[in-house]
């Protein structure tokens, strides 16, 4: 438990000092998105990594948070913080409503259902032109502000969003190490045994789906007020797959893994601009390779690999001696 606290404090410290090292610049802008993607990956991991329930449509909740916040502020002039609260509620309520019927499904069927949800929501973003501006986008979304401070620069947004991201990580870590976290992992390993132990698997799955949607919608709202412009392309199938890839790369059920996956998959495309059009192919390949060779994710897999290699070295040494 002590080690957990130290780990988290190191992360928080890192988050604080990175901007001082970078002294502004383009990378700050990228790090803002790393923060948002980390929130999303952690949120998805609660569902996918802990409860073992796939969602191929999580970009929908991100998008609903973003568009709710965007429309309520840009079109209806609501205070951005109030809009964020409404957006978070909207995402959560939708998750509850669709969660009850679709989380009854298992495996491929659940994947299909969530995929369908993602597609429907994406179509709505495109077609509800009066509200969303359709494919040409929604602009004029105000920045968030606290008192006289308006979050209108990359550095300010960085601190704002990483505040939310760190809170998401901390609360998720707490949850993971609690009876709820154990119940979720139990459902993952054997739903029937979990139920026999008195875990209301059906309800808990829906509640964790809703929590995941809540966090995703908040992330969406933050995204809207940071970007001040939205277009449906950010909330499509590709992004849902990217989120799943982040979770899988980092390791199912590892909160820090999701952070790592989000950092990697957000920074990587920035460096490999040439891959831009093939990103979905690259994600697909990563997913296949990870599930084949490192199903525990990089955060668990690399130490295990190093352990295995050094063990082999150790054995070799003994044979020679």
């Amino acid at each position, binding site marked *: 438990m002590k080690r957990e606290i130290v780990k988290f404090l190191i992360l928080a410290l890192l988050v604080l000092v990175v901007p001082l090292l970078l002294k502004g610049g383009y990378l700050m802008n990228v790090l803002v998105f790393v923060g948002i993607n980390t929130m999303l990956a952690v949120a998805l991991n609660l569902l996918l990594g802990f409860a073992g329930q796939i969602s191929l449509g999580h970009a929908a909740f991100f998008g609903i948070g973003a568009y709710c916040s965007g429309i309520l502020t840009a079109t209806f002039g609501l205070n951005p913080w109030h809009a964020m609260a409404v957006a978070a509620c909207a995402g959560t309520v939708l998750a509850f409503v669709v969660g009850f019927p679709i989380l009854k499904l298992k495996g491929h069927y659940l994947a299909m259902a969530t995929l369908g949800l993602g597609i429907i929501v994406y179509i709505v973003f495109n077609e509800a032109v009066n509200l969303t501006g359709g494919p040409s986008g929604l602009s004029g979304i105000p920045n968030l502000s606290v008192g006289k401070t308006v979050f209108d620069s990359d550095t300010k947004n960085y601190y704002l969003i990483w505040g939310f991201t760190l809170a998401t990580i901390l609360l998720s870590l707490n949850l993971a190490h609690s009876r709820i976290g*154990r119940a979720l992992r139990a459902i993952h390993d054997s739903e029937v045994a979990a139920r*026999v*132990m*008195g*875990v209301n698997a059906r309800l808990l799955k829906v509640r964790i789906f809703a929590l995941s949607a809540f966090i995703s919608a908040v992330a969406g709202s933050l995204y809207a007020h940071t970007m001040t412009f939205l277009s449906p392309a950010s909330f499509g199938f590709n992004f849902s797959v990217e989120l799943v890839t982040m979770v899988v790369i980092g390791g199912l059920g590892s909160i820090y893994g999701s952070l790592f996956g989000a950092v990697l998959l957000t920074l990587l495309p920035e460096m490999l601009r040439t891959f831009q059009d093939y990103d979905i192919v690259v994600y697909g390949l990563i997913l296949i390779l990870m599930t084949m060779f490192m199903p525990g994710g990089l955060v668990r897999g690399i130490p295990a690999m190093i352990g295995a290699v050094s063990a082999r070295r150790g054995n070799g040494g003994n044979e020679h001696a």
Partner: protein
Amino acid sequence: MLRLEGITQVFGGIRALEDVSFTVNGGSITGVIGPNGAGKTTLFNVISGLYTLTSGNVYLDDRTITGFPPEKLAPLGVVRTFQNIELFGQMTVLENVMVGLHTKSTSGIIACAFKLPGHLREERIIRERARHWLDFTGIGELAGTVAGSLPFGKGRLLEIARALALEPRIILMDEPAAGLNSRETADLAGLIGRIREAGITVVLVEHDMELVMDICDDILVLNLGRKLAEGTPREIQENPAVIAAYLGEG
């Protein structure tokens, strides 16, 4: 204490159970025996709410629990183990038993996420109780092991420890001795005795006749989904219908 009334379970064309009535006395050890495919596991699945039974009734102390799902039976004190062990394979042995204490705690998502004081107290108690049940079943030293890597015999014990953590009134064990060597079986017999002494009613499905005849007070014999006989071990051993069924099978 547990009363079955006209239990019938039909799968498509298969009548897995037909009109089975039986009463389990509180504080007893009851054995359910019968050839392969007799319907023993199906009977457990019906009682523990995994199947919706075709017709019949299940009573716990005259209160009907027919059709209750397992998560509703757990707080009433009805728990079971599985013929093909169902552990939480990626969790540690201790965590497995801690899940068994799920109904003994109430902290919700928010209390857990924010580590509210009540939740921390609960967590401490859960950990203590879980250790107690590991020691009770004699696998205390394995607390930190990942459950999926346990040898078979230890896995069976862990399943029992996890079920006991609920502090059930009645525990249904589906072939707890299957795959155990003779020493492990003897230990298991001792453990079942101590479970009964703790005031928990035991029902077990078992193929190990020596074990069943040794520890059971009452026996229910199923054959082809029907009740073939019931009685004390002595009565069952002398029952011509039972002898015929078992000889016929052999």
